[in-house]
């Protein structure tokens, strides 16, 4: 059993998008994700795709790699599209065979909704491909900074988030090693009735929890040894985040995209 890890798929590079401040990139991606929900006709969709193509090109990430990273989500969208096709009952009826009814509204939903989501997925994928997990954590930290100001552990949450990104591959490796070991010990994983399956995962899940706890112990020791004391006090940053002109340009581009959508509405 192979565990595929899709988080942290950073593609090293020096493109304009790579050099953007991670806060700008993350906020931009968020705005695009919201904006695509206002896409309602072909012209807007065309603008959306033009924007998606533009950022994909600017990121200089190989097309194949970009497509691979969005493929699983696009597959989900395709299935959702089919549901829309069969379940939406607005507009004229195009096909009516008993319970199978396809309407113009259904066709519109089946085509439009998934396609506009593709724009959002490309935006997020480009974000993940051009920002290192550490940069993402920095952006997250910045987003949570207001929490710290009112006394909540904003910085610590961001640290937890970045440690999570760091440990995903480690725990995934651990999980596949444990699955291997228990399989060879004759555990029947993924076979039989749901109850049997559930019982069969216990040897894997418990062992994995125990080994995660061991990692947590070690990690806590390492953080102590390296004098990590939370966000308080004297902590500095090697690469303090600074907004540059290109961040303003990027923000303007995203704003322009939103304005374009509004004008086409």
């Amino acid at each position, binding site marked *: 059993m192979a565990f*595929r890890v899709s988080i942290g798929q950073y593609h090293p590079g020096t493109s304009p998008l790579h050099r953007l401040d991670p806060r700008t990139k993350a906020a931009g991606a968020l705005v695009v994700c919201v904006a695509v929900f206002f896409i309602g006709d072909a012209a807007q969709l065309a603008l959306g795709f033009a924007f998606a193509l533009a950022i994909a090109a600017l990121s200089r990430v190989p097309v194949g790699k970009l497509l691979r990273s969005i493929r699983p989500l696009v597959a989900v969208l395709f299935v959702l599209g089919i549901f829309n096709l069969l379940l939406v009952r607005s507009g004229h009826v195009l096909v009516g065979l008993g319970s199978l009814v396809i309407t113009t509204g259904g066709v519109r939903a089946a085509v439009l909704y998934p396609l506009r989501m593709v724009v959002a997925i490309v935006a997020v994928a480009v974000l993940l491909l051009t920002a290192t997990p550490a940069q993402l954590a920095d952006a997250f930290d910045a987003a949570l900074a207001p929490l710290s100001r009112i006394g909540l552990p904003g910085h610590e949450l961001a640290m937890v988030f970045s440690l999570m990104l760091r440990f995903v591959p480690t725990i995934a490796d651990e999980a596949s*090693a*444990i699955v291997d070991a228990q399989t060879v010990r*004759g555990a029947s994983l993924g076979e039989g009735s749901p109850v049997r399956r559930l019982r069969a995962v216990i040897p894997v899940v418990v062992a994995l929890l125990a080994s995660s706890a061991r990692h947590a112990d070690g990690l806590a020791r*390492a953080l102590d*040894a390296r004098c990590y004391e939370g966000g308080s*006090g004297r902590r500095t*940053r090697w690469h303090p985040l600074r907004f540059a002109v290109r961040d303003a340009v990027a923000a303007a581009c995203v704003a322009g995209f939103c304005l374009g959508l509004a004008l086409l509405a």
Partner: protein
Amino acid sequence: MRESPSSAIELEAVTLRYPHGVTALDHVSLSIAAGERVCVLGANGSGKSTLALACCGLLAPDEGSVSLVGHACCVDGQVDLAAYREARRELGLVFQNPDDQIVTTVVAEDVAFGPENLGVAPDEIGRRVERELHRVALQELADADPSRLSGGQKQRVAIAGALAMRPRVLVFDEPGALLDMRGRRSIMAVMGKLAAEGVAVVHVTHFMDEALAADRVVVMDHGRIALMGTPEEVFASVDGLRGLGLERPFAARLSDRLRDRGLDVPWTCDEAELERAVAHAAQPAHGEHTDDARTDGAPASSDVPGKAPTQGASTESVVSVRNVSYAYGTADDGRRGRKALDGVSLEVPAGSTLAIVGQTGSGKSTLLRLVCALEAPDAGEVVVAGVPTARKRDRRRLHGRIGLVMQRPERQLFAQTVREDVSFGPRNLGLPADEVARRCDEALALVGLSGKADASPFELSGGQQRLCAIAGILAMRPRLLVLDEPMAGLDPRGRAELMRILASVREGGATIVQVTHSMDDAARCDRVVVLDRSHVIMAGRPREVFAARHGQELRDVGLGMPRSLEVARSLEGAGVPCLGEPLGIDELADAIARACGKGTA
């Protein structure tokens, strides 16, 4: 205790108890000076890791006084947390598992993490990152993702991260336990440089030969300092060491054996000194020396002449790997098609032992997964116990018949009691309850854990957890036992124990395949396969693989020779006549005795 302003660490009558009643340190007094290199030895559970944590300010004692880099952190059991916090800024720790010490996803960022926490100015952080990465020879991997590095490289990242904090004391708690020889050597080199620069180095290790580089050796036993002195002084106390679960360094063991054989060499831990003495002793005998050493080497009973590949023809193969290729299809990171194995073939005759050696990334672990029928090869054929593994149904039939001891097998423990955990495998085989119980008892007896059957596996010590996991596999009575670095992280006593267990499994007729990074362990197997970058580059009996003409090639692929062979070559370089190809220390001692005209014992 004396007042010395230069001492970096000052422990005075320190006692430390863990919540569940174990006294980990019992009135320990120790003073370590700046620039001193101290090595801490001791069996598992002797308190050496606790001592390491106390030295780097991560554990405060219950009684006694602790002064670290000039801060009085604890006075007569009164802990001053503020002083500890200040002291920790100048103390560093590197421990066993590199995965747990790396906190970010970029090497350089990780090195910067400590200085960031200390509030160092950004420009200065940049300088330190560059400097320390250079010092551990990782400057080219500054932008790499640590999770893609080898164990040795990760450990060097962790060291660079500690060094970037400019510590005055650096504590290494078994840093090389999970590494290969090359990884360990590079860490030892860094330690030497540090001590020379005035950093106090505390090094906890299970490898006796590493202790020789220290200024002072401290041997822990049951929370107390049992022996302390220069390496020579400590290793000279034979009886003491054995009782403490330790062994002596290679040179010391060799000089013992030579003296037993009547050679006039001094007892020493120093390999160079021993070599000079042997070279000197061999001089007079040179003339009458006969050349037979080259051909017959030693009385190794398994050493039947004949080529290894034909050896398999008479006996049936338990594992046949024929021209196998395998690639991991990790679709989303764009490395599809990178072959982990390429055209690999090997045969493992029934009842034999095979060692697979190779660097990190050579394909060893993949080969084990294929042999365990966890995966089917992309091309070629793997046949285990007569069953081809191409079809999923056949692979499933093999599960339960092959025993797999993965790296750090203690990770597979999950049940509430040791007995339940060990019974898991036999029960999956569908055996009746009484047979399960019988096998469980037998396996626990074999690994020496009979008394712990009702304990929780998570309460056992590290070494016992490993034995418990191995018992869980042996209880299935596999005809084929596959082990991935089974010795990693064990102390000498644990290694000896595991060797005894494997010998007894083998006597029962099982076939054993193991991946190892110890050439000495490999030399003890019937056959050795050397993997490098997805290919088999050598295969054969240890005597063939470790033949002198392969020395350079093995070193080029990041491996080495068994210790005895290396010493033999070096002695020959020093003028001792031909010593043949001794694979073990006794063989080497015999060969030297013969070369010195003392004849075989």
